[in-house]
């Protein structure tokens, strides 16, 4: 018995390997299967989908469905074209990500490198807002947005989401790891605070910025509750809202093929961002410099 165990430990353990792979493959299937079903549904006609059981091979209407979704939208429920929604989502997600990064990197810089009155207080204020996500303050925020006439506008979609305590915190932690000597060397070299910020801090933060951009872009893209409240005009819908609006009536009356095509389209940009920025991550990791 003891021998068997040792052998199992030392040799390349075919049974354990098999189990491990089985679990991994199962995991992939669990994750990938709904995606596959979505994809299949987006290539078939409405009738084919509602026909139980639905076939699990791609159909022939891929181009038709996607063209309809992109240019005309669903005939039932909302009928805004998904192309516009994708554009809206892209603008909103991009602005939220860039805005959050810009604001938080500057706030963190102020908190770490400047001694100003109430510095601690402001830090804790920022920290406290971590506990107040949009969902908690949604009613008052809506009031304010409505008063400022921000309904159905990009500003309205972006501004309430643009401050980020998390990102500020992250940058703060990173800045604290930059050695003091580097700051002092820059002072002796004659770099003022802003020069130091642009010439040293930002270049050193590159990989953090890239990582945050991915996370925040997806965060912005996936926003649901807030865009749902603040947009009434179809032309301002983001794609996530668009999907929701397409699912207007009962099961049978929804154009599932178009909805699924829209869902596939909504998936693509975040996936693209992840894939494109992943190169950056790896570069950042290889370059890892401190």
């Amino acid at each position: 018995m003891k021998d068997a165990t040792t052998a199992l430990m030392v040799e390349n353990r075919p049974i354990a390997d098999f189990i491990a792979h089985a679990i991994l493959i199962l995991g992939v299937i669990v994750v990938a299967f709904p995606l596959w079903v979505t994809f299949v549904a987006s290539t078939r006609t409405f009738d084919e989908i509602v026909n139980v059981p639905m076939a699990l091979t791609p159909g022939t209407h891929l181009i038709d469905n996607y063209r309809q979704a992109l240019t005309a939208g669903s005939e039932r429920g909302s009928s805004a074209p998904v192309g516009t929604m994708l554009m809206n989502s892209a603008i909103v997600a991009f602005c939220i990500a860039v805005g959050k990064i810009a604001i938080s990197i500057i706030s963190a810089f102020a908190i770490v490198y400047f001694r100003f009155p109430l510095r601690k207080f402001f830090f804790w204020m920022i920290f406290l807002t971590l506990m107040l996500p949009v969902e908690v303050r949604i009613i008052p925020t809506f009031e304010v947005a409505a008063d400022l006439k921000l309904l159905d506008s990009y500003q309205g979609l972006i501004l309430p989401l643009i401050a980020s305590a998390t990102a500020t915190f992250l940058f703060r932690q990173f800045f604290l790891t930059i050695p003091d000597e580097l700051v002092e060397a820059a002072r002796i070299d004659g770099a003022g605070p802003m020069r130091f910020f642009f010439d040293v801090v930002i270049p050193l933060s590159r990989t953090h910025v890239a990582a945050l951009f991915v996370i925040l872009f997806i965060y912005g893209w996936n926003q649901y509750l807030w865009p749902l409240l603040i947009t009434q005009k179809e032309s301002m819908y983001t794609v996530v809202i668009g999907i929701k609006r397409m699912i207007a009536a009962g099961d049978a009356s929804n154009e599932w093929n178009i909805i699924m095509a829209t869902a596939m389209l909504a998936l693509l940009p975040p996936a693209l961002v992840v894939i494109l920025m992943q190169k950056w991550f790896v570069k950042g990791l290889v370059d890892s410099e401190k």
Partner: protein
Amino acid sequence: MAEIVLDGVTKSFGKTEVIHPVQATIADGEFVVIVGPSGCGKSTLLRIIAGLETATAGEIRIAGKRVNEVEPKDRNIAMVFQNYALYPHMTVYGNMAYGLKIRKLSRADIEQRVQRAAKILELGPYLQRKPRELSGGQRQRVAMGRAIVREPAAFLFDEPLSNLDAKLRVQMRLEIQKLHRELRTTSVYVTHDQVEAMTLADRMFVINAGTIEQAGAPIEVYDDPATLFVAGFIGSPSMNFLPGRREADGVEVGGGMKVPLPEALRASAPQSLTVGVRPEHLELGGTEGLPFRLNVETIEALGADSLLHTNFHGTPLVARVDGHAAPAAGETLTFTVLPRHLYFFDTASGKRLRAGR
């Protein structure tokens, strides 16, 4: 090039005074080493000169001009840090050129200065590399290059060799020496390593707990230490100390052994004295001088020399003898010390008893 004057400079962090009033002048072109144990305030003093810390009281003058209120960049100094403090994302060239760019030197001027510094420091092949692609020694050379290109009035070094391995440290020490011979720029060099201090300094300031205990040429300080602290800190292995008691015209140092007190010191000597003797002054098999019977406990063979760790009535004594004449451990031998090689200190104040002072 400039003279640096510290005129009653004091520094407190909160209520603790870490630099007690310091009075010192660093002459134009001089290489001064500030040496002392860790935490004694060396870096703080250097940073006050650099302008990275403000003095609580007193005045700092560089080239005759009061600089207390002057920003570091306008003090015309350059600093080399222990951990190099290179900009990690810039090339070697970029690191050296950065300060010059900020000072708006022409591109040709920058190029010329960087190339010259690179030549002096033999960094030519590495100009396009990033700091992380360099060895520790090369990085420190880049840090020095960054200082050289500024053509400052003074170089300030804060333990620049501490992060290097022993061999590289020796090599870089020689390079710094060579550099100073070539450039003749006023330099202040902080270290806790008394070997660095001895080898590099034109003059050294031995600092203890925020006070300069002695300033002078290395050999002067070595031969003629002003205090117990300086005597113990400078020299490796450090001076042996025997606690002693005044007894008529001599000092009782244990085991009934009495060493004569020089006439000139008799008037001022207190009751409680410490007698110091350097390891190399304990001579094995000598005929002249005061005999010490010592039992050799352990031997550190260094090659050319051997250090004999012995015991004299409960006080450890180290003797440095020729590496080939070393006895075996366990032997009891007679060592002799010439009376002129004895140092006498007031145990209470730590001050050396010196004739005519």
